[in-house]
């Protein structure tokens, strides 16, 4: 405080100090612009174009409001089936990830020594660095007719082969880290003294797990499920690689953008998983899962 430095930089800094609103605006305007224009804007365009149609003769997009796309979507059975199938796959993947992740995360956070804990976190994260395609094709080889999985199970045809089961297995493998990490983080925040208090009050391990660990874990599990569920719902590559002839919502979107050249209909299909995710997020919001992300 003994020397007061003056200069243009100092003056600007001093001016901003007296105007916190301006400071905040300068800090946030660029990222907010990005969020509104690139992210929400794209979503808005998607929603709007879902109500457009494509002229059957010229292939030109007709920019006029019409409910045709949604009528097709809801009336034709194939779309309902694909939606239900995608929901089933996403649910199965989420449940499998949950069943594997809870004991793994518990071991990492509460049983393993602090040293091995670091290595385990690294081991969980490393597969995320490998390309998605490489991992999917690796599974294609594993699951091939007469491949390693088949011979492990006793001979060709004994494994799941390509199909929905294979898709669920590979998606579970791919998204498992996204389930483990929030549960691990949640468990790390669970004080050991709570587990000790439970044992102290007479509860055995199973009881402690049910009454103390699981309830505090539910928000973390929901947080992880938001990842596994939405990633599975939007996937269309894994199912192409190991899914055999099965189709999910993502495949329909892809096909309408490419082969069918019907962007408005693709947009209409794409609103289905968006809608499902919004409903899911609203449902889990009450559990406090969104604070765990």
């Amino acid at each position, binding site marked *: 405080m003994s020397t007061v430095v003056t200069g243009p930089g100092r003056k600007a800094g001093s001016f901003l100090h007296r105007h916190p609103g301006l400071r905040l605006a300068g800090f946030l305007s660029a990222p907010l612009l990005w969020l509104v224009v690139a992210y929400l804007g794209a979503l808005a365009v998607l929603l709007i174009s879902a109500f457009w149609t494509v002229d059957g003769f010229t292939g030109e997009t007709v920019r006029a409001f019409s409910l045709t796309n949604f009528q097709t979507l809801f009336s034709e059975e194939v779309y309902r089936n694909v939606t239900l199938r995608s929901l089933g796959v996403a649910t199965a993947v989420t449940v499998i990830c949950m069943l594997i992740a809870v004991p793994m995360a518990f071991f990492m956070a509460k049983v393993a020594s602090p040293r091995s804990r670091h290595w385990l976190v690294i081991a969980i994260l490393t597969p995320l660095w490998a390309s998605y395609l490489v991992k999917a094709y690796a599974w294609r080889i594993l699951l091939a007719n007469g491949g390693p999985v088949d011979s492990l199970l006793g001979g060709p045809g004994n494994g799941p082969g390509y199909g929905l089961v294979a898709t669920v297995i590979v998606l579970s493998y791919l998204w498992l880290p996204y389930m483990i990490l929030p549960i691990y983080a949640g468990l790390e925040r669970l*004080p050991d003294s709570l587990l000790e*208090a*439970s044992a102290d009050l007479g*509860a055995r391990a199973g009881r402690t797990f049910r009454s103390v660990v699981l309830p505090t874990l539910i928000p973390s599990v929901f947080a992880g499920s938001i990842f596994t569920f939405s990633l599975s719902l939007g996937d269309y590559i894994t199912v192409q690689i190991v899914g055999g002839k099965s189709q999910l919502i993502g495949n329909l979107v892809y096909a309408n953008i490419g082969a069918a050249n019907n962007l408005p209909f693709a947009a209409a299909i794409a609103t289905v998983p968006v809608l499902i995710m919004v409903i899911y997020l609203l449902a889990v919001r009450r559990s406090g899962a969104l604070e765990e992300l």
Partner: protein
Amino acid sequence: MTDSPTPAIRLTGLRKSFGAVAAVTGVDLEIGDGEFFSMLGPSGSGKTTVLRMIAGFELPTAGTVHLGGRDVTRLAPFERDVNTVFQDYALFPHMTVRENVEYGLKVRGVGRSARRARAAEALASVRLDGFGDRRPSAMSGGQRQRVALARALVNRPRVLLLDEPLGALDLKLREQMQVELKAIQREVGITFVFVTHDQDEALTMSDRVAVFESGRIAQVGTPAEVYERPASSFVAGFVGTSNVFTGEVARGLLGRDGTFSIRPEKIDLSPDSGVPGAVGLPGAVGLPGVVAEVVYAGPVTRYVIDLDAGSRAVVVAQNRHHGAPLAARGDHVRLSWHDEHVVEIPTSSKETADA
């Protein structure tokens, strides 16, 4: 010590090492039924580890733990008739206060109505009736502390373990809780084992105190015994403040060999009149010195005196008369005390402690 044939707790040759670190290096102790027993020591002295071995959270490296005559050394926490009040209270955040208190009863299969009644009773005993439907997060530190106490007491354990339960409370609340804890203990008649690093707390509440020093017990006794007749210079320094004189200084001051402790409040301070022997206390020894520091602390004033014979002494005088202190910095003064207040310390430990 204890006369009862089977003590509530008996620890024999108890040791605990974490890897290469020895936390507890041999503890033998008997705690009587219904006793309020404190384990006092600096952090890292092993007192909490001993508590955790009694609770069953840690397995001893060697030695045994007996509860009410039964060997529980290798038993899990849920197999022991012991409950713990944790330092961070460890209340279950997803349960209401009532559910927290009922947890131990529920786990043991006590019926719903009996559970309700006992939980209400326990909450009333810690003056928290009407708080049953709250969440722990909606309560103050002192209230949570009492919930933790009710949650442990509702199970009517043989022994209640308390791990620095008042550490997180502010001074006023802590003093209030000290009185309440003591009253509750007298009422329920359960053995309390209380871990603390606060000597005031230990002296105020306990029937007996064990002073811990680097993994072992330095002294066990009533608060008065531990305070008035410390068994080592560590105890003299840790339990209250003490002037410890040893070696050359002791010989110069007291004319005797050995280690001696004199409590600051037992020393009388008077201005040096220049007449040798003319000191305040009859039958007292008088020593000249210069005031190095005067610290005003409300009810008392602390004087740090540089003794002419070498070494320093701390004197505490009550501020009974408002106005000028007994002496100012740089004043020549005389210290006097009754010889009976000089405590000879067994010379097992040699370091000088001026805590």
